[in-house]
C-alpha cells in the first residue's frame, strides 16, 4: 500500500473511533422522546425543564427529555417508520390517527385517554398583516378582494394550513346558508390570491416576514404571536377574524413503545402534567389558549374573543374533512383544475 492511501485510511479509522457513540454510558437514566410539530419548539423547551423539576421532586428520578420538531405529517410518518417516540404532541388528530391505523403503536381510541379530546391547549387561525394594515384586512371577506395577496402553506403538506383552509370554508358556509357550491366559489377565490404555497407553517412565516411577500399571512395564533415577538421592529399586527376554527393540537402516549421501553408511567405523567396549573400557565405564556379556567383568566388579555366552530360540528370529523377536501381530486385540487 502506498503512503497517501495508508495515511488516508488511518485518518478514516481515527475519525470513526472519535465519532462512534460511547457504549453503555448512563444506562439508568430515564429518557423520553417527545415527537412534536413545528411551532411548539419554544413551549416544550420550557415545559420540559418544568416537568423534570416536578418529576424529580415527586419520585427522585432524573428524567431527560429529547425533542423532535418538524411538520406534523412528516413527524407522524417518522413515528410510523420506526422513530421511537414515547409521546407524540402533534398539530392535528388526523396525524395521530394515522399512526394508530398505520402502525398500531397506539389504540384507535387514543383521543379518549386524556381530558378535552386529549388536547391540553387549543389554538386557532388568525391573520397577520403588515404595519398599519395597509389593505384594511378585518375579516375573511377581505381576503378574496382583488389585489390582496394571501400567504398560507399547502394544506396537503401542512397541518396548520388544513386548519386555515377549514376555518375559511366554515366561514363561507356560515355566510351562505351552508351552501357548499357558494363556499367552494369563495375558497377558490381565496386560493387564487395565494402567490406561494409553502410546504409548512414555518416556511410560510419566512416567506411573509423575511421575504416580504403577501399582504396577509394565515397562521396559528401562537405562531403569529411569535412573529410579533421575533420581528417586533417590523410592526406586524394580528387581526382576529370574527369567526375562526377551534384547533385542537392533541397529545398521546405511544403505548407500544413505552411498554417496551418501560417508560409508560413517566410518559403518562408527562402528558398529564400539561393539564396542571404550571403546564397550563406555560401554554398560555407561549400563546396557546389554556383549557384550565385559572390560566385562561390570567392570559385573557392576550387573546381576542372569537367565535369558534369545531371540525366535528361543521365537517363531521377529520377523516371526512380529509377525504372531501384534501384527498386527490378533492375540493382543494378542484380549485386548480381548469
Amino acid at each position, binding site marked *: 500500500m502506498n503512503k497517501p492511501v495508508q495515511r488516508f485510511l488511518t485518518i478514516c479509522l481515527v475519525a470513526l473511533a472519535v465519532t462512534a457513540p460511547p457504549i453503555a454510558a448512563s444506562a439508568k437514566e430515564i429518557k423520553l422522546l417527545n415527537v412534536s410539530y413545528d411551532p411548539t419548539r419554544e413551549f416544550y423547551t420550557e415545559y420540559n425543564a418544568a416537568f423534570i423539576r416536578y418529576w424529580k421532586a415527586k419520585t427522585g428520578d432524573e428524567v431527560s427529555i429529547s425533542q423532535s420538531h418538524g*411538520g406534523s*405529517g*412528516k413527524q*407522524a*410518518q417518522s413515528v*410510523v417508520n420506526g422513530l421511537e417516540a414515547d409521546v407524540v404532541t402533534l398539530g392535528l388528530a388526523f396525524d395521530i390517527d*394515522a399512526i394508530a391505523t*398505520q402502525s398500531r403503536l397506539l389504540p384507535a381510541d387514543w383521543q379518549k385517554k386524556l381530558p378535552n379530546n386529549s388536547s391540553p391547549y387549543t389554538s386557532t387561525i388568525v391573520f397577520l398583516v403588515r404595519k398599519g394594515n395597509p389593505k384594511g384586512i378585518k375579516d375573511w371577506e377581505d381576503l378574496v378582494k382583488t389585489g390582496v395577496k394571501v400567504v398560507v402553506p*399547502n394544506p*396537503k*403538506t*401542512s397541518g396548520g394550513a388544513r386548519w386555515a383552509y377549514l376555518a375559511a370554508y366554515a366561514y363561507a358556509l356560515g355566510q351562505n346558508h351552508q351552501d357548499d357550491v357558494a363556499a367552494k366559489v369563495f375558497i377558490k377565490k381565496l386560493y387564487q390570491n*395565494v*402567490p*406561494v*404555497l*409553502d*410546504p409548512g407553517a414555518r*416556511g410560510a412565516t*419566512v416567506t411573509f416576514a*423575511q*421575504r*416580504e*411577500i403577501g399582504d396577509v399571512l394565515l397562521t396559528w395564533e401562537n405562531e403569529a404571536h411569535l412573529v410579533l415577538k421575533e420581528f417586533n421592529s417590523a410592526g406586524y399586527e394580528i387581526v382576529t377574524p370574527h369567526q375562526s376554527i377551534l384547533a385542537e393540537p392533541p397529545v398521546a402516549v405511544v403505548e407500544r413503545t413505552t411498554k417496551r421501553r418501560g417508560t409508560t408511567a413517566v410518559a403518562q405523567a408527562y402528558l398529564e402534567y400539561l393539564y396542571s396549573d404550571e403546564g397550563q400557565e406555560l401554554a398560555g405564556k407561549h400563546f396557546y389558549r389554556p383549557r384550565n379556567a385559572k390560566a385562561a383568566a390570567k392570559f385573557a388579555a392576550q387573546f381576542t374573543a372569537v367565535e369558534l366552530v369545531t371540525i366535528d360540528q361543521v365537517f363531521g370529523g377529520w377523516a371526512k374533512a*380529509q377525504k372531501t377536501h*384534501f*384527498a*386527490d*381530486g378533492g375540493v382543494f*385540487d378542484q*380549485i*386548480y*383544475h*381548469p
Partner: protein
Amino acid sequence: MLPGFNLSLGFTLFYLGLIVLIPLSAVFWKTSTLSWSQFWDTVTMPTALASYRLTFGTSFLAALANAFFGLIVAWVLVRYEFFGKRIVDAMVDLPFALPTAVAGITLATLYAQSGWIGRFLTPLGIHAANSQLGIFVALTFIGLPFIVRTVQPVLEDLEPELEEAATSLGANRWQVFWRVILPMLAPALLTGFALAFARALGEYGSVIFIAGNIPMKTQITPVIIMAELDMFDYAKATAIAVVMLVSSFVLLLGINILQWWTNRYNTTNLA
C-alpha cells in the same frame, strides 16, 4: 479476459444490488399495491401531468444552460492563469457542498421583489421568484459543478499540439474549436449534461423555496410526492415516483447510448 473478472463482476453486481436495486425495487413493490386503474388515475392527475412537464422541461433547460456556460468556466480555468484562480476553482464546488435548502433560501431572498437582484428585475417585468424562471435559476445553480468537473480533466489532457497542427493546416479558431476540440470534449460534456439533468430531476430542497409551488403552474413533481406522503398515501407517492424513475432511466439510457456512439465515432476517426 482479465484475471479476477468473475470476482469483480460479482462484487459490482452485489454492491449495485445492495445500494441501488433493493431500495428501488421497494418503490416498485409499494406501487404494486395499487390496481392498474388506480395507478393510471394517480399518475395522470392533471396536477401530476403539469408537474412532469415542468420538472423535465426546466431540468433539461437548466442542464443545457450549464453545458454551455459550464464549458466556458472549465475552459477559462484550464487555459488561463490569473490571480485567485485556485479560489475560483474551489467556488465551482460550492453548490455541491451547500445544503440545498440554504441555496434555495438564499436564491429566493436574492430574487424576491425586494431582494438584491429581484428589485432590478421586477421593474423590467421579470418575476424570478415564485415562477418557473426561479426553478430554472435554482436548477442551474445546483447543476453547474457537474459540467465543470467532468469537462475540466478532459480539457487538461487535451494537447495544445493538436490545435497547433490544425492551425498550421489552415484551420481558423472557430474550425479548430468545432472540428478538433468539441468532438473530443463531447463525451465528457454529455456525461456532465446527464449528471446535471438527473440531479435537477430529483431536486427538492432548493426548488421549493423559490418555486411558489402553485399547482398546475410552479409545482414540481417531488412536491406532489411529498404531498401524497403527508397524507399517508405511500402507494400513490411511490406510483408517481415510479413514473419519474422510469422516465429518468429511459432518458439517461438514451444519453448513455448517444455518448457511446460519439465515442465510437471519435475512435474510428482517430484510428
